[in-house]
């Protein structure tokens, strides 16, 4: 990936006419793609289209098949009162929804920012040569390997106000004057979720950045050292630009993940407005409140918001997934 970024591959002239062999290969490639596309259409495309369809109906879980067309009413509808006042209803004017959007976006940006910086630091450390590097690399992946629900439950006990080890440590070390209910208190609940998420996914970020770091040829650093470039300058002038494509891809993976955060919030915090995210709210409407259509509208909007943010990110960050020139 890195060598291509450096523009070496682009020097090869493209053949004007495709040979018979190339065409044959292209046909074979298309043939091999068909099963994957079919599988994607069944497991991703169909549910997606169905959800979008349900968001325009009056479906409830008890009458899914009898759902009738409702137009955009789940998103926005209005009625004019006798006094002439117009009353707007629907998802687009639902404060609970926008509160959830704000919670989600805030969570996603803060967590990904921390994970990017910490992941970079961890990757730099792991990239250095030292004894037992293999073991450290494996060990650092453990938080990421634990299923989220399990780690959320584990943290819930550690953060518990009465029995939790964190409060116990804090009290013993004199850092806390009284036990804090990290996840129950509306002010600290979001911070607690952020800490757990950063703990959990920094290794993933580090892994992707490490892969990028290892593609950088060592001789560049040797040359820089001979020229007497300060290590910090080396980092900003050599490492960062060369690892940037890998970092940008890692960030977008995490951003996509963070925007649909559900499990951590659901397990760790009380079901209150201060931490409810889009996914949590959508689930609640879909299954608890018997408002399947409204919940589908939320899911659809969640999909659109994630898509919009992703496109914006790719455009602003000029991310190249193929690693080559366009």
């Amino acid at each position: 990936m890195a060598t291509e970024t450096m523009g070496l591959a682009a020097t090869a002239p493209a053949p004007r006419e495709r040979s018979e062999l190339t065409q044959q290969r292209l046909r074979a490639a298309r043939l091999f793609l068909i099963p994957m596309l079919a599988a994607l259409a069944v497991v991703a495309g169909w549910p997606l289209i169905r959800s979008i369809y349900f968001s325009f109906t009056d479906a409830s879980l008890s009458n899914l098949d009898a759902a009738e067309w409702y137009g955009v009413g789940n998103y926005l509808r209005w009625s004019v009162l006798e006094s002439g006042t117009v009353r707007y209803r629907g998802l687009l004017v639902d404060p609970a929804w926008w509160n959830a959007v704000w919670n989600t976006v805030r969570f996603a940006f803060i967590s990904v920012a921390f994970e990017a910086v910490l992941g970079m630091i961890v990757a730099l450390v792991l990239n250095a040569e030292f004894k037992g590097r293999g073991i450290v690399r494996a060990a650092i992946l453990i938080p990421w390997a634990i299923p989220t629900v399990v780690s959320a439950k584990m943290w819930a006990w550690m953060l518990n106000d009465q029995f939790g080890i964190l409060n116990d440590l804090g009290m013993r070390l004199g850092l806390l004057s009284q036990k804090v209910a990290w996840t129950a208190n509306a002010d600290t609940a979001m911070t607690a979720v952020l800490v757990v998420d950063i703990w959990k996914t920094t290794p993933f970020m580090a892994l992707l950045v490490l892969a990028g770091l290892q593609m950088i040829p060592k001789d560049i650093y040797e040359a820089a050292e001979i020229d007497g470039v300060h290590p910090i300058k080396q980092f900003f002038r050599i490492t960062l630009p060369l690892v940037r494509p890998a970092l940008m891809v890692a960030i977008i993976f995490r951003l996509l993940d963070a925007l649909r955060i559900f499990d951590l919030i659901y397990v760790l915090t009380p079901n209150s407005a201060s931490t409810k995210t889009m996914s949590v709210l959508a689930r609640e409407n879909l299954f608890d409140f018997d408002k399947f259509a409204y919940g589908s509208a939320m899911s659809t909007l969640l999909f659109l918001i994630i898509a919009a943010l992703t496109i914006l990110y790719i455009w602003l960050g000029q991310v190249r997934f193929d690693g080559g020139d366009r």
Partner: protein
Amino acid sequence: MKMNKLLVGLLTSVTLVAGAAQAAELSIVSGDTGTGLEFLRGQLDKFEADTGHSVTIVPMPSSTTDQFGQYKLWLAAGNTDIDVYQTDVIWAPQLADQFLDLSEAAAGVLDEHFPSIIESQTVNGKLVAMPAFTDAPALFYRTDLLEKHGKSVPATWAEMTETAKEIMDAERAEGNSEMWGFVFQGNAYEGLTCNALEWVKSYGGGQIIEADGTISINNEHAAAAIDLAASWIGTISPEGNLGYMEEESRGVWQLGNAVFHRNWPYAYSLGNGEDSPIAGKFDVAPLPAGDGPDARSAATLGGWNVAVSKYSPDPDAAIELALYLSSAEVQKERALMQSNLPTIEALYDDADIAAGQPIIPAWKEIFQNAVPRPSAPTQANYNEVSSLFWSAVHDTLSGNGSAAENLEVLEADLTDLKGDSW
């Protein structure tokens, strides 16, 4: 000779296969608290021995809110894996279409149960579920601590607040730094609706939504009750109480770190268990009353039932299981081992129960006067009503606005939700 043996062997194996075809393989879902699952397994073992059917338990999280979402999803998808569901008393109107009518199968035993409970499980003449046990919460208090500090059992919430604070402060001064005054269920879920309904009703503030569908929650009595509860957080109740469900609050209480505790009767037998540090050191009383003209002691009606999925491939065996789990025999065992209140009236006069679980005969009257949650008037909207209510209360408890402000918004939200009718 050899041929004969072979024949016998063949014949027995054929009968075995035929016998197995009649015995059903059933599944029951259960999200229980405390030692509930263990108890259920024991009862199912007896059922298996008696009938030859086999029953698998599918365990669920203990939060009823979590259970409901899952059940709703399964039932909507016509899941045939689960035959028998354990259902909360409030679910009957919301799940009625998905369960079999048990009125015919249970015709012979219906009269034994309290009529109000049978009625709560009957939707448009269809008996949706058989009652397994009923529930009404109690105020658990530490007899040793009250005696030590010369206090009596509080009759009002204000008195409870004061007593709890005094004992807590005194105990802490003696070096008992983990001590709290009162623990209850403060997480934002169905349990908070139960707790808050008790506060509101005890202050004469109505039942959120009255039986005729009127929204009554926005009144000064309700606000006074919830404001008092909000004053507990961080003073007599730990801040973490905002995240407690039944089992978390029982944890604090059963370790001996609380003077008062609000919970359902199941906590009685667990608290008196062999490994419990507070065994023999506590007793129960009706929940305190509020202040004001219509003040009374109020307890939210709870209880669990067994329902048969209409998608069950073996409905007859499943109904057999439902009837067994609601039978007098199992209810008596439940009462003795789990301190769950029976729904069969005669069991309240049972000598064994009176001796083993004195809480139960004492509770008959309390649960007869228990306050139902507004699930009947609000029907399919109940979960959302409850969620709006517990959110408003949780906000107030978290210090996010006063009770009066939050109840005003709640009333507007409920009116929107109601539309022309529930």
